[in-house]
């Protein structure tokens, strides 16, 4: 409209850039801090411009870790986080898509009760069952293991609902055509339904990968060994010691490294990300 011309437009641009600055500032500071000398930061004399210690700080962070508190190389933590995030994302998608397939494409006794049992887990986030879940995982000897990190988080009412929703929109005639073409239930699933679900799976994967990578409370509980730590848990342990000993450049480099994979996923796969985010909230 005419009013959108001129002055108002500049105001809009300005507000958006201010917003971007606010959103980006803490991360900018982290990046700057990760390139500076610890002594300078500890004195409260940190410069707002990047320093010259980029390579040495990141080398130390990834391959050596802090020299004081945990001494676990952050590279290893990232590997743990990656394995956990992938297991959670792939696992959730796999078990959700097959249960949704069963619920939509078959009639069997207890179909709806099973659906509700899965659905109600929406109301049981890990925070409300922390210690009993911890105890079960301990009893199953899964503490400090990838299975323990991922398995208890792998059920997904949201993903199941999403696939169910999607399958309902697949025309019945596709199944009928497949039946006439001689495809049984497993072949229909593999040849037709799975390829059709590709975009949904990809969008879901993006979201679930981020959620998996960012898990905190659960890994905090069940990992006791430093070499099984995820990066989110590791970063917290780096600042447990008294302030004076905290190696801030390493902490900030770890923060940057912790942000890097999920932020990259969001920016690089923005369309899938937006789609996944909107779909999973249905």
């Amino acid at each position, binding site marked *: 409209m005419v009013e959108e011309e001129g002055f108002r437009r500049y105001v809009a641009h300005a507000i958006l850039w201010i917003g971007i600055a606010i959103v980006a500032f803490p991360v900018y500071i982290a990046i700057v801090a990760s390139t500076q000398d610890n002594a300078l930061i500890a004195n409260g004399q940190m410069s707002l411009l990047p320093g010259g210690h980029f390579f040495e700080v990141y080398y130390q962070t990834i391959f050596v870790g802090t020299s004081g508190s945990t001494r676990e190389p952050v590279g290893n933590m990232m590997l743990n986080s990656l394995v956990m995030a992938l297991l959670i994302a792939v696992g959730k998608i796999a078990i959700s898509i097959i249960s949704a397939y069963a619920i939509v494409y078959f009639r069997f006794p207890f179909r709806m009760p099973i659906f509700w049992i899965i659905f109600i887990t929406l109301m049981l986030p890990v925070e409300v069952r922390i210690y009993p879940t911890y105890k079960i995982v301990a009893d199953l000897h899964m503490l400090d293991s990838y299975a323990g990190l991922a398995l208890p988080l792998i059920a997904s009412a949201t993903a199941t609902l999403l696939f169910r929703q999607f399958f309902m929109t697949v*025309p019945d*005639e*596709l199944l*009928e*055509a497949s*039946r*006439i*073409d*001689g*495809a049984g239930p497993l*072949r229909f699933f593999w*040849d*037709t339904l799975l*390829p*059709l679900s*590709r975009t949904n799976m990809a969008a879901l994967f993006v979201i679930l990968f981020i959620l998996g990578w960012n898990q905190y409370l659960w890994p905090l509980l069940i990992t006791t060994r430093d070499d099984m730590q995820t990066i989110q848990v590791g970063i917290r342990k780096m600042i447990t010691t008294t302030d004076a000993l905290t190696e801030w450049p390493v902490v900030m480099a770890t923060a940057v490294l912790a942000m890097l994979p999920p932020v990259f996923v969001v920016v690089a796969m923005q369309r899938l990300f937006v789609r996944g985010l909107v779909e999973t909230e249905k």
Partner: protein
Amino acid sequence: MANVTLRNVRKTYPGGFEAIKGVNVDVADGQFCVLVGPSGCGKSTLLRMVAGLETVSGGEIDIGGRVVNQVEPADRDIAMVFQNYALYPHMSVFNNMAYGLRNRGMKEAEVKTRVDEAARVLELTPMLERKPRQLSGGQRQRVAMGRAIVRQPKVFLFDEPLSNLDAKLRIAMRVEIRKLQRRLSTTSIYVTHDQLEAMTLADILVVMNGGQVEQFGNPLAIYEKPATTFVASFIGAPPMNLMSMRADEIKSQIGNSGDAGILGIRPEDFVITDQTPAGGVALPLTVEAIERVGAETFIYGSRKQDEQRIAANPGELPPGEVIVRIPGSEAPPIGQKIRVAAVRAKLHLFSDDGRTRIEA
């Protein structure tokens, strides 16, 4: 090659709704059978029962001498063209056609030969590597046809395959389907709600209503001698004029007509004339509306008479609306009173309930 026989076929849904109330149809080998009827008449259900997509509640479905009630769709040796085509959206045209063959374990070389041949016949060769969404509606329709013919099945089943096309393409594809079926001479069952499609395609026409067969046989024979008022009004456009009348009126005018209570006259069987043909009927009409479509003109006339003339004159019918079709574009002006007549041979007589045709 096979004949298809339906013996007293029934379908009752779990809720108790009777969709098919005992249907007997016999389609000879190589014949093109069309099931026609209004929506909800059970024609699609019947077709899907032949395909094996719906269970059969009673009776027998026989394809090529084998009762197939319990046979899986894939093992009935049928192919089906769906209304929305049901193409696999993620597969290329080639793979869409090849899928059913590969599932049967056919050798890849043979698959290729068959698909290429079908593509050639349907002029799809340049599009074999495309995905369905890159095709026009007509092309998708042809892929759906191709998927059916590569299988070389005993029977083709068509479920309103043309209803998603625009009018012009529909006519072109109608002709193509007929030509293809003639050439392959594969027994075919075709469902449509469009009576024109039904008339032009069918060797044998099955008119259905309310889960039952109203009439079946040669389409022209049905047109000329509709067995019920439902068939009379469903086959032919514009529909037959149906007028209920008292038996004594008919008797006095037409002579021996049994206990007929309904008289039917097709719009095209009227002529504008002052004379009353012997044994025929004449109607005085007031012209209410005119539709000129070029080669022919439809006159919508009302038989509402002056109030004082309640009793009809001999040979005249009681009040109502009548459609008259005349050739050319000459027509009387609106409001004019005209007189139309039909000869005895063009009159159709039905019982009061419209369920029985009466041959006088």
